[in-house]
């Protein structure tokens, strides 16, 4: 199982937390495709708090967090 957490405008029309069945080799690119989010809309893509490349496989039980371009304080 992979937990995907969505933030800011990605929550519009979607749940804020979505679970995906794990299979070997599943990548970030496949996950956002399933969510209907384009790569260029994503500013921060982290897996368990760490940066990952879109085509790197994600491990089982991981938490994926996705943010559009957001701000500072």
């Amino acid at each position, binding site marked *: 199982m992979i937990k995907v*957490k969505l*933030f*800011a*405008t990605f*929550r519009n029309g979607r749940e*804020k937390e979505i679970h995906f069945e794990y299979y070997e080799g599943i990548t970030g690119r496949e996950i956002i495709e399933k969510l209907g989010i384009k790569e260029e809309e994503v*500013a*921060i893509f*982290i897996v*368990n*708090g*760490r*940066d990952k490349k879109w085509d790197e496989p994600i491990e089982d039980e991981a938490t994926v*967090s996705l*943010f*559009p*371009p*957001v*701000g*500072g*304080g």
Partner: protein
Amino acid sequence: MFGYAGKVLRINLTEKQIKLEDLDMNLARKYLGGRGLATKIFMDEVDPNVEPLSPENKLIVASGPLTGTTVPTGGRYMVITKAPLTGTIGCSNSGGYFGAELKSAGYDMIIFEGKADSPVYISIEDDKVEIKDASHLWGKLVSEATDELMNKYGQKARVLCIGPAGERLSKIAAIMNDYDRAAGRSGVGAVMGSKNLKAVVVKGSKKAKYADEEETKKVVSDKIKKIRENGITGEGLPTYGTAVLVNIINEHGILPVKNFQKAYSEDADKISGETMTRDILVRRNPCYRCPIACGRWVKLKDGREVGGPEYETLWAFGADCGIYDIDAIAEANFWCNEYGLDTISAGTTIAAAMELYEKGYVKDEEIEEDGYSFKFGDVEAIIGWTKKMGAREGFGDKLAEGSYRLCESYGVPELSMSVKKQELPAYDPRGVQGHGLEYATSNRGGCHVRGYMISPEILGSPEKLDRFTLEGKAEWVKVFQDLTAVIDSLGVCLFTSFALGAQDYVELMNAVSGTDYNVDTLLEAGSRIYTLERLFNIKAGIDPKEDKLPDRLLEEPIPEGPSKGHVHRLSELLPKYYEIRGWGRDGIPTEETLQKLSV
């Protein structure tokens, strides 16, 4: 003379004397304006060993050359003084409308000297400047004092004032303007209080002057376009305000929880920008000519509509105190604005008191009469203690001194999460190495807005850096600190820098002022300003050994969450930083560097 008003108002409160002076344009070329120029003037006039709350300290309220012009976010002013909280140079910055109004009344800065023998306020209506009795305003909350002055001077007037915290010389008192905007940090409000100066009300009717009006129009609309098209300044900040950071920072495992004992919370979403927008947001609350409009206007539980909390505040009164109730935080924020307290220092000082209590240093007997607890997570406590702190009542009197002095009084200064006695803001540096170096070397003590490394290390702007590595971080910190010094000196908002780069500021400055800066000379001015501030601190007796972080952050690994296992590696970064700054290994700027920068 363009951009600048060309005039300085010097007000001696002891002598009740008001003088008009010309701005030294040669100095302005070197130190730009605002933060830089005011620091230079301050250093030329004030002994760095001055006692911050004595009449010999001065307080400068300064705008920059772009303040009050058509440049987006050009409403900023800066307060320069010797800071009571840190003993360093005090340098606090605020938005709203006051700065622009001061410029349109015809002044680049006001220099306050001495001390009035009873409470006064200053009224400025273009050329008419008066020192007035403020005994009827003394003791009033910020909104009460502001209302009274606005009723008297009209709704177009702009008011800067202190609340009861500043009057009572709290070392974490802010200077407030336009009700809910704050020159917040380092206790600058106490300096105003020590001078018996309650408020400044200003009304101006003069138009800004431009070196090249056509070129300014072109450049300004190009920059507004860039700001609108950038994801952060065009979408993220306008929609959610700075509060959007709560989830981002938490997901990276660097949201300090319970006085930095942890760095991740399952409950963070309850105090996030997303929740604030959904549940309590009424409207946006922009500063002067700001297309970003990150400011919030929110509804309190009792129905009152007031200025809303920033990210830092949501964290300081929230996760750092173990609290996840957005209504309670909004209310604590409201009381900070009313009493005139810095929200970061106020919230984190309560968090430190909570850890002191948890560890058995603060005893029940000490706080029994106050009627509030110091239990992490106690919602009533953050509101109750904020008011007590603002009024310096009961145990609130101790809190008003800030977390360092509080923890020191119990023999455990290491429980204060501060640098140079100023409380750290809302990012655990153990998981952002560059940002930690920034905390350690900030000229005003623990602070995130001297060189916001969160931008490249977390947000990926202007490019993404690995937050755990050390490579190149010292260089980045230096450039960010220098650029920030430029932005603060020009009189625009730091948040424009998500969308704009050094070249953009060059174009804005040259179009407005008719100068011929380029990226190198502008950044060199930033470096000159940064080095000058450093010199002040050294002369004021701040040992470079104070360029450090609390032991907890250097020694105890983050216990859980996405940044688990990391400590901050300051000792590996600092020598490199000194080297590229042209400071000796002892952290003191070398003669050669001072000459090169012609400080």
